[in-house]
């Protein structure tokens, strides 16, 4: 017997990848510098920060939620890490505290949304402002610098010629892919996004799933914040501003449905690559940054429109 879902499912999923390959081909034709090992690693490094945030965002969006606060979580958790190191503590301890604080901020989002029954958009819009405000309070509006050398390795180091941020991104991808695909928690995420009531009546603790999902998003945001801080060698109070938008765009470009229940994390990786390559390629082609925005927005719109037209029977 034929697989009723299988065929159209695969086609649907390959769409973003085909788009990515097309963009690569076009850019290669127009600029011979594009497809070089150096530049590809460069792109990967640029993509890694957004990809990490977008991975967490994928979990959130799969449950039918949204997390607008990731940019502010980046800023606040980075500020904590930087502040501790500037005050003389070791980088390992500082990183630990930073990741913990980011996860906790996500947990707060989750609790407000699950227990307080606040719409995710509103809840995270509010915490976005709160976390940003706390960052400004903590840093007094000034960048924090002065880190040990080892800390710089996280964002600027290499392992076998591969930039460290790329390693972090791939490790996170692997772990999250497995969680989403092979664990019962992953299954609960999809079920919750598809039909919350049926999932709850099936004995799934839906509140717990929600809290976990936002915690994961917070954790990944703080990780990307640490990489960012390491790369810039300073923690900026305005770091991460509007990063949530690129993350959401990557998730949607990857084919995950904003209404929840449908999608996959590999798509998000492809989506983040598309955004990163567009940025990089348009730079190489000397397109002005004003036009770059127009092109980027246009591509997002086009991708979503194509996706829609495929969904029909």
């Amino acid at each position, binding site marked *: 017997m*034929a697989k*009723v*879902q299988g065929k159209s499912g695969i086609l649907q999923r390959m769409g973003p990848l085909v788009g990515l390959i097309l963009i690569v081909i076009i850019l290669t034709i127009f600029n011979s510098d594009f497809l070089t090992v150096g530049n590809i690693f460069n792109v990967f490094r640029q993509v890694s920060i957004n990809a990490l945030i977008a991975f967490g965002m994928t979990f959130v969006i799969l449950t039918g939620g949204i997390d607008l606060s990731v940019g502010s979580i980046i800023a606040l958790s980075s500020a904590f890490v930087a502040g501790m190191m500037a005050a003389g503590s070791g980088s390992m301890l500082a990183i630990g505290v930073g990741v913990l604080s980011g996860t906790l901020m996500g947990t707060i989002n989750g609790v407000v949304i699950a227990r307080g029954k606040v719409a995710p958009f509103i809840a995270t819009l509010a915490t976005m402002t709160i976390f940003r405000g706390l960052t400004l309070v903590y840093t007094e509006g000034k960048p924090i610098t002065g880190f040990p050398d080892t800390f710089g390795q996280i964002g600027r180091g290499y392992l076998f010629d591969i930039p460290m941020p790329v390693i972090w991104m791939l490790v996170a991808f692997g772990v999250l892919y497995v969680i989403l695909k092979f*664990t019962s928690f992953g*299954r609960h995420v999809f079920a919750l996004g598809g039909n919350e009531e*049926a999932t709850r009546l*099936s*004995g799934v603790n839906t509140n717990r799933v929600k809290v976990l999902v936002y915690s994961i998003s917070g954790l990944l945001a703080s990780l990307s914040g640490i990489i960012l801080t390491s790369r810039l060698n300073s923690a900026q109070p305005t770091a991460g501003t509007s990063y949530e938008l690129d993350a959401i765009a990557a998730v949607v470009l990857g084919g995950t449905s904003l209404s929840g229940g449908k999608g996959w994390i590999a798509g998000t990786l492809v989506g983040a690559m598309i955004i990163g390559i567009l940025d990089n390629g348009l730079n190489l082609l000397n397109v002005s940054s004003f036009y770059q925005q127009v092109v980027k927005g246009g591509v997002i719109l086009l991708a979503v429109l194509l996706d829609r037209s495929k969904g029909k029977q």
Partner: protein
Amino acid sequence: MTDLLTMKGINKSFSGVKVLEDVQFSLRQGEVHALMGENGAGKSTLMKILSGIYSKDAGSIQIHGKESVASSPKTAQALGVAIIHQELNMIPDLSIIENMFLGREFKWGRTGFVNWPRMRSEAKNYLQQLGMELNPDIRAGELSVGQQQMVEIAKALSMQAKILVLDEPTAALTKREIEKLFQLIANLKTQGVGMIYISHRMEEIFQISDRITVLRDGRYIGTRDTDVTTMDELVQMMVGREIKERFPKVEKEIGAECLRVEGLEQEGKLYDINLSVRAGEILGIAGLMGAGRSELAKALFGVGKYQGKIFVNGRAVSIKNPQEAIKAGLALITEDRKGEGLVSDLSVRENLALPNLRSLSRFGFISHRMEQKFVEDSIKKLNVKVHHPGQWVSSLSGGNQQKVVIGKWLATQPNVLILDEPTRGVDIGAKREIYDLMNQLVQKGVAIVMISSELPEVLGMSDRVLVMHEGRITGEFLRENATQETIMIAATGGKNHG
């Protein structure tokens, strides 16, 4: 005179799987033409083609002798075709009025401003024709399944169609609503409306139809005039074999008390509910729509706060959420399979596994092998018609979806199984399979609470019957003493005990 509607040589496949093959169907003016067949026979698909939701692969559709292809529900409306779907399609956050006139709102002239007074009065009017005294401004989400079904019917009426398709309209309705609906159908007949009526209930089909067409496995089997055919002939046509005994009886032992409820109350919904069920017993709960039966089932399953005591196997338990209910050994098969029973974006496999993931995983990781085996076993045991377990559950026929809902709970091995309208939309063969399954379970010592609006089913399957009215228990009967009449008296508020 030409027929109102002629469909000929209709073919349809989904991803290479044939679900309709050379199907024909015709409809005259003022006729009720019943469409019958087992779950998955292709009835709903044929009607979805007629109403522009699916496109046909081949064949011709003529309305008034003119080739007419509805390419969307909107063009179907323009062609005079209205359909009441098997699955409810209300938008819960919109009011009844908004749902009824969605996409065809009345305007003030050409201004584009919505003419609320006119819509309100029209909505009231159609609801009244169905005997519904509902405030049309309330949110659809607040309505019970049966009420939503009535609103869907009112909506179809308001389209003033020439061809009206009713896909299992009575599955969620109680006797009184059904009578109203039948009066209305008789009315529409005199106005020349042709109606296509899909139902698994033989009694209804014989009561209101003029002709009956039977499909089996996507093929046309035949058409009979209702007054010359018999139930046996139809069953033979539908399943290709005979089915004896609609309600099978088995030898079983009624054992110790499994579930006892004392003084259960839920604000505004349930008052002083006392009941007990014993191992091996089937307790039927009858009542009219809105009597609080589903609320009772849900309260027992930890939905909403309650006062009162619940005992499982003699032990007092507090059930604050579904997880605790499952832990206590309860399982609930809800009446609203689309809203509460299934996750339609997931596959058959994932739906079946959902309440069983704990036992199918090790350290949080789902064992692919165990899941696969579990799913194949469930599909086989319940005889679910699927092309592939990875198929979206929403692409199954209604009756097969119901089997998936039942299947996902059986594996949790409950002590007490609560079934809310377990055979809604299920064909006669599958009904019998579900009854057999219930009997197997009680023989193993499971206690069953069965809520049903089909009185023959309540009388045929239960050992004891409770009747509810406005959130209270108003009658209790042993199977031997219960009759349709005594139950109806209790269900309408008259107190009596048998």
